[in-house]
């Protein structure tokens, strides 16, 4: 196993070769797919992070007491968008590795770097995964699924997981190789750029979805000329297609910000639909 050493950039402060093999990182990668298995409200992913670290701790430390200390170190509160836990595990492993090599790395420093990475990674992970990648793939899949096509669920499942697995693996290796230097990378423009880019893409596609995949028809007759009825919907469509959908979306956003439970909003819309159908102003 030890033949396949991951080489690090030689001109860096972590100039010695790392102890971890590709096999160790692969084990950690497989385990990190189950990052949230023991999710709990007290310490969120604490045990998940510890489990990710186990194959790495086993390789780095041979003294039982050192292993126990490392395990306890990584049973602390941890939370990050699950697809982006790789870089934190990688950097932490690099630090543990350096510590065993006699570098001046205190346990407190490992903790604070872990916590320091969580914030920015959540900041990019949540809009990237939950605001952009998943809604876009889910909407794409759902529109195909509405026609009964197998492609819908398939595109969603395969597409999402390819991106997720690639992020998990490459960022883990990247984090371990770069070690502390990753902090310089993240401190630069990379994360804010990625976050803003993902947000622009997500917002743009949401705008398209609001007008294209929302159906509101208001068949109220406004005027009748030469036997041809003009409905309120016709007038609204002439102004700009999708205006009622936009209004309803903005209203819902406002209500959600006022902490109204989304489920009640959905029930309210059922009520509106039934009322509208009964009185004839919605069809």
């Amino acid at each position, binding site marked *: 196993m030890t033949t396949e050493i991951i080489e690090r950039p030689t001109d860096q402060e972590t100039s010695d070769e790392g102890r971890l093999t590709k096999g160790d990182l692969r084990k950690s990668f497989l385990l990190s797919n189950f990052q949230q298995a023991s999710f709990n409200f007290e310490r969120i992913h604490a045990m998940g992070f510890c489990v990710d670290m186990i194959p790495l701790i086993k390789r780095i430390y041979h003294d039982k007491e050192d292993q126990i200390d490392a395990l306890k170190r990584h049973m602390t509160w941890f939370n990050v968008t699950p697809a982006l836990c790789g870089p934190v595990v990688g950097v932490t492993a690099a630090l543990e590795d350096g510590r065993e090599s006699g570098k001046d790395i205190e346990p407190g420093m490992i903790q604070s770097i872990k916590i320091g990475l969580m914030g920015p990674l*959540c900041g990019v992970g949540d809009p990237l995964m939950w605001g952009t990648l998943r809604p876009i793939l*889910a909407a794409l899949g759902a529109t195909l699924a509405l026609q009964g096509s*197998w492609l819908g669920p398939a595109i969603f499942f395969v597409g999402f997981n390819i991106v997720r697995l690639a992020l998990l693996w490459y960022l883990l290796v990247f984090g371990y190789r770069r070690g502390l230097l990753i902090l310089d990378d993240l401190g630069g*423009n990379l994360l804010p750029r990625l976050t803003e880019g993902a947000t622009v893409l997500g917002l*743009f596609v949401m705008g398209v979805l609001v007008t294209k995949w929302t159906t509101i028809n208001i068949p109220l007759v406004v005027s009748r000329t030469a036997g041809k009825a003009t409905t309120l919907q016709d007038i609204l469509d002439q102004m700009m297609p999708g205006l009622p959908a936009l209004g309803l979306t903005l209203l819902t956003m406002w209500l959600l910000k006022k902490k109204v439970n989304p*489920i009640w909003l959905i029930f309210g819309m059922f009520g509106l*639909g039934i009322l509208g159908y009964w009185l004839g102003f919605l069809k």
Partner: protein
Amino acid sequence: MSVLQIILIFFWSSIVGAGSVLDSFQTHRPLIACTITGLILGHPVTGIILGGTLELIALGWMNIGAAQSPDSALASTISTILVIVGGQSVAKGIAIALPLAIAGQVLTVIARSVTIIFQHAGDRQAEKGNFRGIYALHFSALAVQALRVSIPTTLVAIFISPTAVRSVLDALPQVVTGGMTVASGFIVVVGYAMVLNMMSVKYLMPFFFAGFILGGYLDLSLLSWGAMGLIVAIVYVQLNPKFSAPIAHLPAGAAAVTPTGAAGGELPDDELDD
């Protein structure tokens, strides 16, 4: 329902429950959960259509940090069973799914509190340096989450009476079912609004309105819209003075050679002096 089907429902709903806490493989999303449940029950296409409809509604259901959203897992598995075995329409399936999503949310909160016990047991194994003990506890906690969905789902699968479901739902008057069909056309905005609120950065909202206006007039596939959005995002990041040195006098091409993936070292970091 045959015994084999009930066993398969148990296994699949366990995977859905596990997926719901992991949030990795996405087996808990309606698009996947309803499809496979439908397949087990012999009506895959109904499952796919119900999954697609529910997916659009659940688009914004996401767990950020420790906050819990409505539960798509239980809503998907049980509503698919009720629609297929009870012979109901997809629109009625949606109406059934929503109360289930609330029930599932309550169960999730309970399950994620129960796993605190596993966390503390994990501490004791760490004290002993017992790697296997930690693995075992980590994955046992996952089993709790799996059973959270598979127990209620399997109970419904065993005790469901098609005639009872039918008689209850068929008793709904036409105005209610018609109104629900109308509502299912615009209920999706709740999902959109949840995503938008999560992304909400006021100064980027023009991109939302741009998508809205263009989408109203142009007839492109969703994939093309995604590509358009990506291009807009890349150009925005490239041209944004926040992310590049003040090189206004240079031709546009010079600013364009800063791809998003570039490492921080290639750019001057102290650019915000304009």
